[in-house]
């Protein structure tokens, strides 16, 4: 990039970064975002400081209230998912929090409470490894006489780890929790969680009074209040309760209308509406106006407003005599100042509820709906601040350049024209990181956009300008002066790069091995393990799931089971047998990726790519799962490498590389046939690479031989697959029937799905930005040949899959992940290289050169850190969220615990039903290796045909094709089964059950079974021989209570 272009880009970047920062600091967002911080002693099920194994924590507490609270709120802080129920009604639920985040919930529960027995029930679910569920509770019930009851008291709470039911469900008020234990009170910790509403708007009790206009003429009235705010406001909220539809204006901006409420004939139901007015309040005089319309009678209003300043002070304003009013049509009511307009009269204050009982008030958070002019004003402010920052930066840079010229006596020779602009880079990076951090739920905008940081952003540039002046040489150095350490590059650079590579490989390996057995075997891994054993027994993967089903050879991912078979010769644990090869392929991919980066671009690209891949939470997650994906990914990358190496340049093809590519692509295809589409992109990339010099390519006989070989492999595999799949009839539609379709004709077509899902972390924004940058670089950068090759391979495959694959699954683009990483690494290094080259070419002194390089290296390191997926989780950027694995995330249903529970409690004569029978059978068999015939699941429950069923050879009965277990396909069969067996067990997934069963089946199970064990995503239900249905139990309890009134009291 030319110096002038670099200056413009940096100036523009700084203007946007600093201007955006300044705008967000001075103009709060209209979207509420607050942090709740507390020093808490959380409740959990841990014992003696040992974390509990339970993945669920159920808490409940009951109170007998003689009167209903006027005001009640509750605040929960915990991990990882919180669910709150009050008196059996769901009040709130949080999204799943990531490893660094704490979930928070603050809500008003007054309308849910009543006189008599009340209960608060909380479910906390674990979704991150080694972080047992825990929750801290705070809250208050406030009564009419001012008395308070605190919910923060840890006494009285009862806890368990299963979805319990004793007649009533665990969350219902009537539930008897005497058999539950007291939860453990953990050590004091400081937790912060984000909520999407001003928490003090919930926790601050109403201190306002009902007011009405002084003149009760007509049914329209403007009620307004002017107040002074000292200090710079940080945020503010307003709660309004009115007896008719109203419009609200704050400082002249009308931010809510009454369009939906007008013209109704039914009585107006007052609702307390909360507004986050942070973007509207200002220091000095503020005016709040309400125009209320009623169907008849004088309008009445009750409002509470609170404003917080940057200094941490709070200003409270409630409706009282200070408010003023005017009645009848008041033109421009939103702009009138009650203090200067004599027509405004003081409002009258009324006492009492005025028919609006506090405990019955519904509350809601209202979104601000400012007029277009408000947005125009904000846009103008934004543009203005960007322009100011740009001008300030330009002035600073010009001044610094002038000083540098003076100091070094270069007299405006243009030597230092660009150097001052380099000082803007740290501020640009800081501004960008701040913007990204804003989307992380671990931080709120209030934490990031503070004046002190804004000053820091500016100061950062100023300090560097001063530094540049200080380190500037007093005498101009001769052109092309030799660096002080001429031998550095030759001697130390390879050693340093090698050391870095060793560290990267070591850390990556540790990250992949650390949690290799943290999760139990996945139900698909069980099938894979079966194929692995069959490789050892008969040389090819295949098997017979049940004597009533024919023997079948594996017809997909055939080569995926040979590495695991090899591993099985050395280790016995099925998880290790399957996952060690996955780790191996993942590490091999890392090494190959690093090598490709170094060979195709430069050593830094290789290192950056290796770091991104090594730290990638998604790659780590798949390396700990024994399926075909890591293997396919390696061979995809290898194929691309061999192909590029075979065809690069304009001379003859390198035959060794060509045959390597042919073997590699065949292996890739036999590891997963879906990767075959990669070949199309690869061919296109080769055509682009060799356009203009095709003759040596087409005249090479080896090329045709290699193509024929690959086609034979593809054709043979296809023939084998079809022969295996037509061996028996399968009922239903499954992934194995996948056939290409024109998906752009379907409603949910998303052309960029697979490109986005090639992201190496859950947040795809940065990967997509890097991809876009690489597309620009591919036009005329010196790396354009390699970049074009990579981009065509990636984009063609991703677009083809989006266009014709009738299934959208994140894992299908996993083999493209390293390609995107390589592209991103090249783009990042190319940007840093601009500075590097500038430092080399410009006639700078050694300290100046070191400064430029330090800035570039620091910016690159920060970018890598942010893009690693470990530092920032931009979970609020919903459009760029993909289903990649998160850091140490629990990933799939855990069947080990349920199977062990079942094994320990099942008796002869019991019936066992399961949704994944092969998983239960596997666990039963592995635990009872000595048993001649281990206990097996009796029935597979699927009343809607989502997973394919098949027919047995000897019985005309639908069977589960994975295990041969008999299928129960409707509720009548289920009822008959329940009538034949005293005890029935059901192993199921907590939510997936409803996907393969209809409502009548789910309802029957719910009514007739109880949860006896729960794990992550799974549960064991039991209908015992002493079981009575829930309605029956309730009836009996009622009858028992009545009997106790008359008999044996």
């Amino acid at each position, binding site marked *: 990039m030319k110096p002038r272009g670099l200056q413009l880009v940096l100036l523009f970047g700084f203007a946007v970064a600093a201007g955006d920062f300044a705008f967000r600091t001075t103009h709060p967002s209209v979207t509420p975002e607050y942090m709740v911080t507390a020093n808490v002693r959380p409740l959990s099920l841990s014992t003696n400081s040992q974390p509990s194994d339970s993945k669920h924590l159920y808490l409940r507490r009951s109170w007998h209230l003689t009167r209903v609270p006027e005001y009640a709120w509750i605040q929960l802080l915990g991990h990882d998912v919180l669910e709150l129920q009050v008196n059996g009604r769901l009040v709130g639920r949080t999204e799943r929090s990531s490893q660094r985040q704490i979930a928070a919930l603050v809500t008003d529960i007054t309308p849910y409470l009543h006189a008599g027995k009340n209960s608060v029930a909380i479910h906390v679910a674990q979704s991150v490894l080694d972080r047992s569920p825990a929750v801290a509770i705070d809250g208050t019930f406030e009564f009419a006489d001012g008395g308070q009851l605190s919910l923060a008291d840890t006494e009285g709470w009862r806890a368990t780890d299963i979805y319990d039911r004793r007649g009533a469900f665990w969350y219902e008020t009537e539930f008897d929790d005497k058999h539950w234990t007291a939860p453990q009170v953990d050590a004091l910790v400081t937790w912060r969680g984000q909520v999407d509403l001003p928490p003090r708007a919930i926790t601050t009790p109403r201190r306002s009074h009902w007011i009405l206009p002084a003149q009760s003429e007509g049914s329209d009235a403007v009620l307004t209040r002017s107040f002074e705010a000292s200090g710079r406001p940080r945020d503010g909220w307003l709660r309004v309760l009115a007896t008719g539809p109203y419009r609200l204006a704050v400082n002249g901006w009308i931010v809510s209308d009454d369009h939906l409420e007008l013209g*109704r004939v039914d009585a107006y139901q007052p609702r307390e509406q909360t507004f986050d007015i942070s973007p509207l309040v200002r220091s000095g005089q503020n005016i709040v106006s309400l125009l209320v319309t009623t169907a008849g009678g004088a309008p009445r209003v009750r409002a509470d407003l609170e404003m917080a300043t940057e200094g941490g002070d709070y200003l409270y304003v409630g409706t009282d005599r200070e408010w003023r009013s005017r009645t009848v049509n008041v033109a*421009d009511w939103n702009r009138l100042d009650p203090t200067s307009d004599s027509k405004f009269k003081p409002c009258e204050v009324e006492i009492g509820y005025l028919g609006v009982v506090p405990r019955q008030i519904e509350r809601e958070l209202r979104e601000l709906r400012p007029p*277009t002019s408000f947005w125009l004003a904000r846009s103008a402010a934004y543009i203005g601040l960007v322009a100011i920052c740009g001008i300030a930066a330009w002035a600073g840079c010009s001044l610094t350049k002038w000083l540098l010229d003076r100091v070094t006596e270069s007299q405006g020779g243009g030597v230092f024209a660009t150097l001052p602009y380099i000082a803007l880079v740290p501020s640009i990076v800081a501004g960008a990181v701040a913007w990204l951090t804003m989307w992380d739920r671990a931080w709120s905008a209030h934490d990031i956009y503070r004046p002190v940081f804004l000053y820091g952003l500016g100061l950062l540039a100023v300090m560097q300008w001063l530094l540049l002046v200080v380190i500037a040489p007093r005498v101009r150095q001769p052109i092309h002066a030799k660096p002080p350490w001429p031998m550095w590059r030759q001697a130390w650079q390879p050693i340093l790069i090698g050391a870095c590579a060793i560290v990267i490989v070591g850390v990556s390996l540790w990250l992949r091995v650390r949690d290799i057995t943290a999760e139990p075997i996945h139900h698909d891994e069980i099938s894979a393990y079966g194929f692995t054993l069959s490789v050892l027994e008969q040389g090819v993967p295949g098997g017979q799931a049940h004597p009533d089903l024919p023997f079948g050879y594996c017809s997909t991912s055939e080569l995926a089971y040979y590495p695991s078979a090899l591993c099985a010769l050395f280790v016995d644990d099925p998880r290790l047998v399957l996952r060690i090869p996955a780790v191996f392929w993942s590490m091999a991919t890392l090494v190959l990726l690093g090598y490709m980066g170094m060979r195709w671009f430069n050593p830094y690209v290789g290192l950056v790519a290796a770091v991104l891949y090594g730290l990638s939470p998604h790659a780590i997650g798949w390396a700990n799962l024994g399926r075909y994906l890591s293997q396919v990914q390696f061979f995809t990358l290898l194929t691309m490498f061999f192909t590029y190496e075979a065809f690069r340049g304009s001379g003859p093809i390198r035959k060794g590389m060509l045959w390597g590519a042919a073997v590699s692509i065949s292996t890739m295809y036999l590891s997963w046939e879906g990767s075959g589409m990669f070949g199309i992109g690869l061919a296109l990339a080769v055509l682009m690479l060799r356009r203009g010099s095709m003759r040596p390519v087409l005249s090479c006989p080896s090329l045709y031989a290699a193509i024929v070989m690959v086609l034979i492999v593809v054709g043979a595999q296809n023939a084998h697959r079809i022969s295996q799949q037509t061996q028996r009839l399968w009922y*239903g539609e499954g992934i194995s029937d996948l056939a290409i379709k024109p998906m752009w004709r379907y409603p949910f077509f998303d052309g960029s799905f697979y490109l986005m899902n090639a992201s190496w972390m859950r947040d795809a924004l940065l990967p997509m930005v890097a991809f876009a940058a690489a597309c620009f670089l591919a*036009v005329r950068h010196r790396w354009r040949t390699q970049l074009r090759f990579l981009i065509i391979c990636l984009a063609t495959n991703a677009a083809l899959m989006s266009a014709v694959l009738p299934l959208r699954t994140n894992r299908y683009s996993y083999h493209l992940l390293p390609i995107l990483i390589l592209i991103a690494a090249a783009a990042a290094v190319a940007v840093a290289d601009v500075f590097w080259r500038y430092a080399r070419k410009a006639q700078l002194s050694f300290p100046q050169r070191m400064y430029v390089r330090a800035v570039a290296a620091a910016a690159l390191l920060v970018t890598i850190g942010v893009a690693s997926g470990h530092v920032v989780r931009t979970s609020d950027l919903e459009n760029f969220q993909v289903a990649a694995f998160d850091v140490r995330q629990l990933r799939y249903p855990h069947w080990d615990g349920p199977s062990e529970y079942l094994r320990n409690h099942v008796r002869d004569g019991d019936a066992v039903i399961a949704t994944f029978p092969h998983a239960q059978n596997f666990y039963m068999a592995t635990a009872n290796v000595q048993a001649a015939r281990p206990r097996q699941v009796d029935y597979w429950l699927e009343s809607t045909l989502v997973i394919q069923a098949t027919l047995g050879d000897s019985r005309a009965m639908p069977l589960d094709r994975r295990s041969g277990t008999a299928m129960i396909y409707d509720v009548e069969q289920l009822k008959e089964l329940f009538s034949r067996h005293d005890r029935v067990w059901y192993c199921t997934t907590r939510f997936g059950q409803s996907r393969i069963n209809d409502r009548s089946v789910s309802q029957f199970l719910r009514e007739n079974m109880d949860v006896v064990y729960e794990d992550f995503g799974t549960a064991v239900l039991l209908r015992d021989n002493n079981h009575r249905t829930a309605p029956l139990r309730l009836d009996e309890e009622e009858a028992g209570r009545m009997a106790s009134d008359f008999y044996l009291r």
Partner: protein
Amino acid sequence: MLSSCVRFVRNVPGWALTGLSRAVSAVVSRRALAIGLLAGCALLAIGPWLRPPITRDLRGPHIPWGEMEAPTFFPEVVSQTPRPWRWNSIATPLLAVIAVGVVAVLAQPKWTSRVFGVLLAASLPAAAVTLWNYPTLVESFDSEMRDRALLRAVFRQHSEHMLSAGTSDRLAVLSDKSMRKDGLLSQPHAVLAPLRYSTYGFWLVGVAVAGALLWQRGTWVRRIGYAGAWASVGIALAFAATWPRWFAEYRWARAAALENGHDFVAADRSLDAATAAMPAMGNTWRYWLAKGRISYRQRQAENKYQAFFLAHQAVLSDELDRARALMEPYVGPSEGTTTQRDLLASVIARRAADYASDGKYSGAELSWGEAAAIAPWKAAYRIAHQAAQLAVAPQRAAEVQQQALADLEALGDRMVSSDFHSLVGDAYFVAGDFGRARAMYDRALALFHLPKYTNIPAQEGRLGM
């Protein structure tokens, strides 16, 4: 002679190889890539530009350039299929530019960047006209969105596994909130609302920008400047082509500000000025509601606008009978505007959905029939009517199938279409006509059956489950 022949034969493979390599190289040459990109642009130009929630997509050749007032492009006409391709459509100039561009690229490759520049300048006004010159059409899409929610309720009554019962609509904007009354009104601003129905029109703009950037030689500043210049021309043309809309929107914003400031007379005048600038705005719900609200705020005697507004408010509070009573004086067999008929039909349709959810299928059938009669251009009501007929009398399957053929042709939503075929299949099944039932299930499966998006009703129907 012989030696010449031998030499010739010996040279043939070499010539063939040279020819082949040149041919292959030509396929990926800059010129061929430009031609390929222009072919892609042509596909986009005749591809879908607007996607209604239920009915078929509107393609480039369906959308006229400047028929803001022409009755041939009112929603009630547009909903009919097959739609004619128009000479005065937005696709015509685009295709002309592409055709001339192909010749230019072949003849003079250095003109390629200009071809893409002109295409960029032409595609921007085409996209702007599509989005902003037909406000009634966009409102009819909003109305289809509400109808889709009703259809979902209708199909859900039949089976919980119906495709359209459990999934979002084909624009993926409907969710469980779709049946919320306030959700129906919490629309984006009228200027932004068309964007949710936009499909491939902006892709054409993107491809043209990419073409201009790639084929312009020089530095990035030069390339961006070049593309920016053509984009500026395009934006100016787009502004000119949609000028009445922007003037009308300005008057509208003014009317809203005046209404907020309690100057209702001036607000009313400003609304009239908006419709004078763009008369098509006078046929929108938005206009009728604003007009009626201002009339209501002024406590004027009831008029057709106020009745429209009050009926709409009554729908929000589920007072469907009151809403119907308010609208009926203004809507008759041949009376009432499209807007009024649309509202009344939607009121009756909501009542029909209520009947269906209460299991009163005869009442539902009657109401759906009424709604379909009042708004005959809305395929959703006819489909719902026919579904209700099948629920009441499965033996009428053949008759209903015959009636529904045209409506099914008009449907763009595969899920609704597939569900309806399953319903007819079920009716045949109940009536014992298994051959026809199987044919309907097959058709339903052909329309929609994907792994993980299984068409359970049709699949189970075909298996006789």
